[in-house]
């Protein structure tokens, strides 16, 4: 699945993107490289997403989110809660 498909609360690991090498390198410099785990904290207009990575809030435009393949590792409990509880069934549904 792609980052653009992830709902708020989804916990994902970045797998790959189809950008050219210099862009991939710049994304890596910005903290977005394969293996990095993130949590979706906001959905934004035009398919944008805000990720929480090690406490940082990183905004990504919809076009970029469409090109990032991710692996869904879990779905956290609803927004207002602060727990890291995961809904495995929901995660399995989305992954499928």
């Amino acid at each position, binding site marked *: 699945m792609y980052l653009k498909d992830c709902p708020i609360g989804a916990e994902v690991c970045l797998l790959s993107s189809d950008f050219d090498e210099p862009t991939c390198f*710049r994304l*890596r*410099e910005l903290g977005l490289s394969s293996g990095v785990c993130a949590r979706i*904290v906001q959905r*934004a207009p*035009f398919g944008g997403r805000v990720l929480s990575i090690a406490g*940082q*809030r990183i*905004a990504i435009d919809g076009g970029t989110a469409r090109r990032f393949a991710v692996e869904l590792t879990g779905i956290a409990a609803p927004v207002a809660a602060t727990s890291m509880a995961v809904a495995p069934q929901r995660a399995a549904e989305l992954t499928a």
Partner: protein
Amino acid sequence: MDRGPARIALLGNPNVGKSTLFNALTGAHQHTVNAPGTTVHWEVGRWRLPAAHGTRQEVDLVDLPGTQSLLAASPDEQVTQDALVGAGAHGAPPDLTIVVADATALSRSLYLLAQAAETGTPAIVALTMNDVARGRGITVDVARLSERLGVPVVEVDPRMRIGLGELASTVHRALHDRPYLHTGLEHVLAGVSVTADSPADGGIPDASRALTDQIQVHADDHFEWVAGIERDLVSHSGHRETWSDRIDRILLNPWFGIPVFLGVMWMLFQLTTTIAGPIQDLIDAVVSGWFGSVITSFLGLFDLDTGWLNGFLVNGVVAGLATVATFIPPMGLMFLALSMLEDSGYMARAGFVADRVMRLMGLDGRAFLPLVIGFGCNLPALAATRTLPNSRQRLLTGLLVPLSSCTARLTVYVVMATIFFPHNAGTAIFAMYVTSVTLIILAGLVLRRTVFRDLKPEPFVLNLPAYQRPRIKPMAMSVLMRLRDFVVRAGRVIMATLIVMWALIAIPINGGKFGDVPVEDSLYGATAHAVAPVFAPAGFDDWHASAALATGFVAKEVVVGALAQSYAVDEPVADNQPGLLADRLHETFDRTSGGHPGAAAAAFMLFVLAYTPCAATVAEQRRHFGWRPAIAAVGVSLVGAWVLAVAVFQIGSLL
């Protein structure tokens, strides 16, 4: 040999609080300079450090453009890289670099720091955003970080002025101790001349190329080193929802985000028009009216109140002062609003929300803001281009801003539309705004495919700062600094232009006294006569029209007045009651257009929309981008406006 004050560079990623720290350390003792050979700006300020026996040591602090990496991907990042290695015209590397690191995004800061270590200049670290990091459950072991890096690490909060004294003492010691960052990977630029560069590769100096090569070779090592430090010294307590996250649920919401953004833009527009307008009128009345009459009365004591000296002082110098002074309210309000948006953290979100639209022109989402503000007044809009992170994007936006139809142009549309399209005046005026937006998009697309081909769409990836309450004192200081810079730098050009305009009107051509000549008989009038035939294909080959357009080059607000003056009729009391002026204009346009006055009026309105907005805009473009782009913009806009006017008249006259 005395080298003067030590030079200290502030280096950091965008949005880490670097400029806030710079303002807190230097206060009012700062000025903007152009990086050598570029349109990239940086700030230089004088900072007084505590020295021995209660004395003070003065140093020059340089606020370098924020950069994600020392592998430069934009002119701004290249300037930062060049400055750090002392490449090209920079002369020498800084005596000390303060790496401003963000505790909430430590990995990105550490990565930049690892690259900075390769420059081999002494450095210390200022750690910002510590309170926000704690709020997000991030803990940094500062003492061990300092130990691992081999340089002092000072926690600071420039907004609250916390830790600034300790930073000053640390810098003072570091200037003597010269601490070097220790990453275990650094390879000092041995053998590379950093002062005698000859640009060899696309203008990039040798020292910068050497640094780039070195960093590229060690890139993987840098990433590993950062990961190691983060693993050992930074702890995260898992995801915590913060106040900023909650606010973002509304401000970045797919449904509410855009209306909120448009609301903020609308408020900015109101600030520069509805709120600034009455203050501008008052200032104009005081400076042009009252102060001008005081000067005339004073000269009257010596029987000089009717001569050229009075004209020069009142219509040249005082008019110039009044023009500069009347721009202070909208500029001040705009600077204040920009400071609030930046300081609060919303500016980054605004760029995110508008990104999709501006991406069509290869621009960052933040470019939307100056283009909207331009519909109020182009001057603060040009000032707002500085919020863009890339100098090429700033330049492109700065060239598009004059196509935003400012309120001064509205006065011309209203009079012309009322006279020539009395039953569809509203529609005609609305069409001008639609045309303005269309021109911005078309010009943006054309420029992007020609002189701005290098502006390729890049992924929008931005570290969102936490929302914070703007601090009044630093904000007021920042507004005053920017206003001072505007008045001093743009004010000179505005004054000079207005004095030249006065001189042209004062010089008689067909006899008469200098400074006391009818407009038609002045050098200005003669020039208008000479220029008028150029507008024959556009349907308004008449000196009254060309003289008004020439006056409009100084300010669009005076076009209607200049038309009235040239016909020797009273200026309309209200824009929609043109009276005698209507009759004269109708007669003129009827004659010059061969019976198609409507088409000629539309062409005239379009010319007013598309040609140079005012002398102050040119001055502000020069201030931001230099003379060449400013002059090129004037030339292109005159030619473009003429082509559009001719096309509209020629097509319109066939209908």
